[in-house]
C-alpha cells in the first residue's frame, strides 16, 4: 500500500497534467495535493507514480476518473448555517431588486454548497430570476451533481445544518430515498449553467453579482490565491459580493483596497465602487 510519495514524484504528476491536458496545479498546496494523488492511487489500485503518469497520458477515461478523485468534495450541505442565514437575510435583499442577476461558483465541488444555495433561492421565490453558473475542473463531478445522489449517512448533518440555517421547510422535502441514498430534487439544478474548464481563469461568466468560493483557496498556495482573488474581483460587478471560507483571508493590500468587509465572521466582502 502506498502511504507516501516524494515531492519530486508529485511534481512529475503535476507536469504531466500540465503538458498533456493544460491543467495547472503547480501552485496548489503541497500537502493536500499529495494526499489527493495518494488517495487516487489507492482507490484505483495504481502501484506507483510511473504507472499513474502512464495511465494519465494514455487513458482519457482514467484521466477523467483521476480528476474526479482529486477534486475536493464539499462533504455537507449548509456547512456554516450562520452564513446561509446571512445570505438569505442580508445578501439576497440587496441584490434581488434587479430584474435578473448572476451568481457564480468558481468551483462547485461535489455540489452540496450548490444545492444549499439553490434551496435558499427557491425558498425565497427567486430561483427563476437568478442565473447560476457553476464551474468545475472535473467533467465527472458535473455529471455527479446533475445526478444528485448523496450518501444517506450524511443526512443527519445536512438536516441539522438546514435547521440551524433557520430555513422554512423540512430538508427531507428536497430529496427522495433511492436504494438507501438521497436523490436530490434535481429540478433545482435545471437552470444552472455548468461550466467544465481546465482552469478557474478560463470560461468565467461576466458581470456577476455574487461569487461563492468557500474553502477552495485553502488548496492553493499564497501566490495563486492572490491571482485567483484578483481574477474573481475582475469578474464581480461593482457592489457585488464575494464569500470565501471562514478560515480564509483576503489580506493583501490590493484586496483590502478593492473590497470592504460586510460580515467578518462569515467572510462576506463587497467590491468597492472605486
Amino acid at each position, binding site marked *: 500500500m502506498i502511504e507516501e510519495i516524494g*515531492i519530486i514524484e508529485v511534481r512529475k504528476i503535476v507536469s504531466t497534467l500540465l503538458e498533456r491536458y493544460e491543467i495547472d496545479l503547480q501552485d496548489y*498546496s*503541497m*500537502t*493536500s495535493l499529495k*494526499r*489527493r494523488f495518494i488517495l487516487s492511487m489507492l482507490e484505483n489500485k495504481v502501484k506507483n507514480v510511473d504507472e499513474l503518469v502512464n495511465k494519465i497520458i494514455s487513458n482519457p477515461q482514467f484521466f477523467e476518473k483521476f480528476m474526479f478523485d482529486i477534486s*475536493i*468534495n*464539499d*462533504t455537507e450541505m449548509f*456547512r*456554516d*448555517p450562520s452564513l446561509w442565514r446571512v445570505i438569505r437575510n442580508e445578501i439576497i435583499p440587496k441584490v434581488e431588486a434587479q430584474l435578473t442577476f448572476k451568481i457564480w461558483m468558481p468551483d462547485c465541488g461535489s455540489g452540496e454548497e450548490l444545492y444549499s444555495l439553490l434551496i435558499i433561492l427557491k425558498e425565497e421565490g427567486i430561483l427563476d430570476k437568478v442565473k447560476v453558473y457553476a464551474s468545475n475542473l472535473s467533467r465527472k463531478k458535473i455529471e455527479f451533481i446533475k445526478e444528485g445522489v448523496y450518501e444517506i449517512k450524511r443526512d443527519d448533518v445536512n438536516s*441539522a*445544518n438546514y435547521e*440551524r440555517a433557520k430555513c422554512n421547510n423540512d430538508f427531507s422535502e428536497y430529496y427522495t430515498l433511492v436504494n438507501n441514498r438521497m436523490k436530490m430534487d434535481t429540478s433545482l439544478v435545471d437552470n444552472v449553467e455548468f461550466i467544465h474548464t481546465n482552469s478557474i481563469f478560463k470560461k468565467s461568466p461576466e458581470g456577476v453579482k455574487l461569487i461563492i468560493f468557500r*474553502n477552495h*483557496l*485553502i*488548496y492553493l*498556495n*499564497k501566490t495563486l*490565491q492572490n491571482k485567483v482573488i484578483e481574477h474573481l474581483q475582475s469578474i464581480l460587478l461593482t457592489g457585488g459580493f464575494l464569500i470565501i*471560507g*471562514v*478560515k*480564509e*483571508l483576503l489580506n493583501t493590500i490590493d484586496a483590502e483596497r478593492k473590497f470592504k468587509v460586510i460580515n467578518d*465572521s462569515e467572510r462576506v466582502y463587497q467590491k468597492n465602487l472605486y
Partner: protein
Amino acid sequence: MNDIKAVMIGGSAGSFQVVTKILASLPKDYKLPIFMCLHRLKHVRSGFVEALSIKSEMPVIEPFDKDPIRPGVIYLAPANYHMYIEADKRFSLSTEEPVNHSRPSIDLSFYTAAYAYKSKLAGIILSGANRDGAKGLKAVKDNGGITIVQDPKEAQVDTMPSSAMALTSIDYVYSTDQIISFLKKINNA
C-alpha cells in the same frame, strides 16, 4: 534529548481539563510552537479557543489558512477543518473528508507535522475514546521524533493512548505532571 522545535498534542474533547492544566503551567515566554488537534463539535466554531485562552499565559489561536508558524504560540485546529503543517512551516487547512469520523483528524495533523519537522517534533497523545492519533504518532516515531502518551491509568478514556501504544514504540508514558515537566525541559534545552 533531540533538539525539539515544535510540539503536537492530540486528544478528544474529554481531555479538555488535562489540556487546560498543561497550558496553565507553561510560562508566558515559552519558546516553542505548540499545535493542538482536539476532537470537538464541528458546528460550534467559537468558544473553545476563548476557554483555553483564559487559562493560558501563552497566546492561543486558531490559525487561518497559510498563516506562518510563530514561536511561543499555541495553535488549535479549527472546528470542521483538518489542520496540516506544510514543509515551509505554514498551516494549510482542508475540508477533505473526515478521517476516523473526525475533522480535524489527529492522524492527519500529526502525520504532516512529522513530515515537516522530522526528528525535531515531540508528539503527545492524551485521553480519548477513538483510535485517531495512533497512526499519526507512529509517523512521528518513523521520522525520528519523540513519542509520548498520557498514562492510560490516568486517562479518563484510554482508547486513544492505548491504541498508540499498540501501534508504535512510545518513548515516554507520562502523567499530566510529567508531561508538563517534559514541556518545560525541552523549552530550556
